[in-house]
């Protein structure tokens, strides 16, 4: 993989990451936030795979697999939490979930 390709993949990952961060901060819908988190994670995965390929190292790919597994679990837990929040409040708006306010 030459430098041009490397930069393109890194650029893609950065764009995805930025979209994800925007989604996490700006969206009010909890499900959308969860999806944004998946975008961030996948941006990281792309980075891992890119650098692994650039260095001819399989570790990057292996790490990406781990991240996918962890992300799956995280989505499972996250969706369950969203479901419970919805059942309690009949809403998934994050602005209403502020009972931890100091």
């Amino acid at each position, binding site marked *: 993989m030459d430098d041009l390709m490397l930069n393109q993949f890194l650029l893609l990952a950065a764009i995805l990451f930025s979209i994800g961060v925007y989604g*996490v*901060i700006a969206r009010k819908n909890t499900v959308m*936030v969860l999806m944004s988190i998946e975008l961030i994670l996948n941006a990281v995965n792309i980075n891992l795979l890119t650098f692994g390929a650039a260095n001819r190292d399989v570790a990057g790919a292996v790490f990406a697999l781990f991240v996918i597994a962890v992300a799956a679990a995280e989505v499972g837990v996250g969706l369950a939490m969203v479901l419970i929040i919805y059942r309690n409040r009949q809403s998934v708006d*994050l*602005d209403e*979930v*502020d009972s*931890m*306010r*100091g």
Partner: protein
Amino acid sequence: MLRNAWIIPVIPAVSFFLILLFGKRLPRKGSELGVAAVGAAFVLAVVAQVQWFQHVNDAEHDEPTGEHAAQVVGSSGELAGGEAVAATETETRGFTRAGGGVGAVGAEASPQADDEHASIEPVTREWTWFEFGETEAEVGTLIDGPAVMMLIVVTLVSLLVHVYSTDYVAGDRRYTHFFAFLSLFTASMLGLVMSRSTLQLMVCWELVGVCSFVLIGHWWEEKANSDAALKAFITNRVGDIGLIVGVIILFFAAGQSFDILDINTQALNGGISHTALLVASCALIAAVMSKSGQFILHTWLPDAMAGPTPVSALIHAATMVVAGIYMVSRLYGVFWEGLSIGVSSINLLALVGGVTVLGGAGLAFVQNDIKRVLAYSTVSQLGYMVMALGVGAWTAALFHLFTHAFFKACLFLGSGSVSHSVHSFDMREMGGLRKWMPHTYRTFLIATAALIGIFPFAGFWSKDEILAGASQLGGAGNYRVFMVVGIVGALMTAMYMTRCVYLTFFGEFRGHGHPHESGPRIVVPLWILAILGVVAGLANLPSALASGSVELRFEHYYEPVGAYFPSIVPEFAHPEFSWGIAIVSTLIAFIGVGIGIGWYTGRIGLRGITERNELARVGYTTLVNKYYFDHLYTDVIAAGTKGPVARGVNWVNQNVIDGVVDGAGRLATATGRWVYTHVDQQVVDGAVNGSASAAQSGGQVFRQLTSGKVQQYGALLFGAAALFAGAFIVLV
């Protein structure tokens, strides 16, 4: 064994701890440990004895004739071979005779003379205890004639007392404790007799004192007993100051040395000034007065009868009181030179002894407690020993110690046997006991005969030698006055002992209940001691009556010969047996017995003399009040000191100490108030309050951040991450 003699005191010392730790769990409550330990010590002492005899014999045969070098190191070949222990820190010092012309220089020296006595090196061994500066304090063993002799006496009497005690104090609530301290008592005394240095001697001396305190106060629940224990201890403290002063003076005078041999050698060869020796001797005499019950510090000894009888026997025969005598005999070079014993005709040591002979004997007349009679008798007999040392009859003194140990132990154990039977020590509640207690009676009678000095019992030989010494030794005029004192003392001894025996064993029984003979564990020790009371005197048969290998064995084997003992001094001599004195003293003894019997059977018309005669009444009252010594100490000295001192102290207390305390109090209050208003209220509280309000306002600011909104947190998180990332890029 001579080089490893340290084992002998260590055995009972270990037994002390074992009994204390495990005694109560043993089937016989620890007494078996005590008996076994002292028995083992006795066996080893006998072994040491035999080896010492060989040592003396070898020294004679090996000795080259004429003058020779002063130092012979490690010459005791057979000892090293026998022991196979070659500790590197040990050495055998040879103290050989410094020059010729020793021995039979004095006109009255015994005809067998000392010429055959070669120099006999003591077997020594030492370890460094601690060091201060250049000086090393050493502990170790010093085995020579007197030490070996004392080993035998102490272990034998102690063993018999142990056996006796298993019956006598059976069932006592502190039975185990009693045996533990008997063991320690024995161990301390054994340590004392083989002390290498004055420091070690002092430590053992104090240990003996502590053990006597514990054992005299064994039945401390009664106030009288604990008082007696305290009295013994405190009176001994008074004398111990003398010991400490003496040891310190000798330490500096002898060039920073605690070494007994060294001190003696220097004292004899002029290395220490006469003044220092005189002062040291006087200080040490104070120690002898307290420990060995000499006038005027004798008052504790009769009170010490409050302890169990076996303890009294041990104290009076073997362990406690002879420590003083032994100390003098150990440092005899110091006393010899310091008091000019060889050339004078009166000195403090002899005077103290002489006064004690008569004073103690006088007090023995008016006591009704059988043990107190014996106690005053011991005081008187110790007076003989001190007197003998004072007149220069060293061997006679130790010989008397040797014989006295046996018959006095026998008498004490006999009185214990009597009280075991009639449950009282008061002779007014006894009488006629010879019918019920035949063994006790016979042994008591034998021991009494020995004490009175009837031929051929042990006391006759030793007392006679003392009297001969007083009449023959010393400078111009000799110590004749002390010979008279000794003869009067012998008369008094015979009289009061007759009274004691008569009241106890003759006449009608005046007590309650049915007296009975004691068991074998009491009777057998009595008989052993009684037999020794008969034959011990044969240990030093005078050459006028015997010759060759039986004459003067005691003197031959036990008297040290070497530069550390006055036998190198020309004036040192041995008294010669005198028929005159022997006959007179025996007659006196019989006269005393006769007067005693006459008096108490009413045939001599002295009965009721105290009612008829003013002088006799005054004398009697004085004796009953023990010459008012107790009054002197308690009422005059103690109270006299107490009153003014108490008032003075009170004044100092009220005015000086209270003033200081009050002033300190006021100052502290003022300081406290200032600190409160300025430091506490303003600085400390200010800091505390300030930090609290700072925390509060800080909290108000930061609480705005905790909105509870996840996305706000996320924004902060990513913002911060972006900042760090930017900083990273800029910096790297």
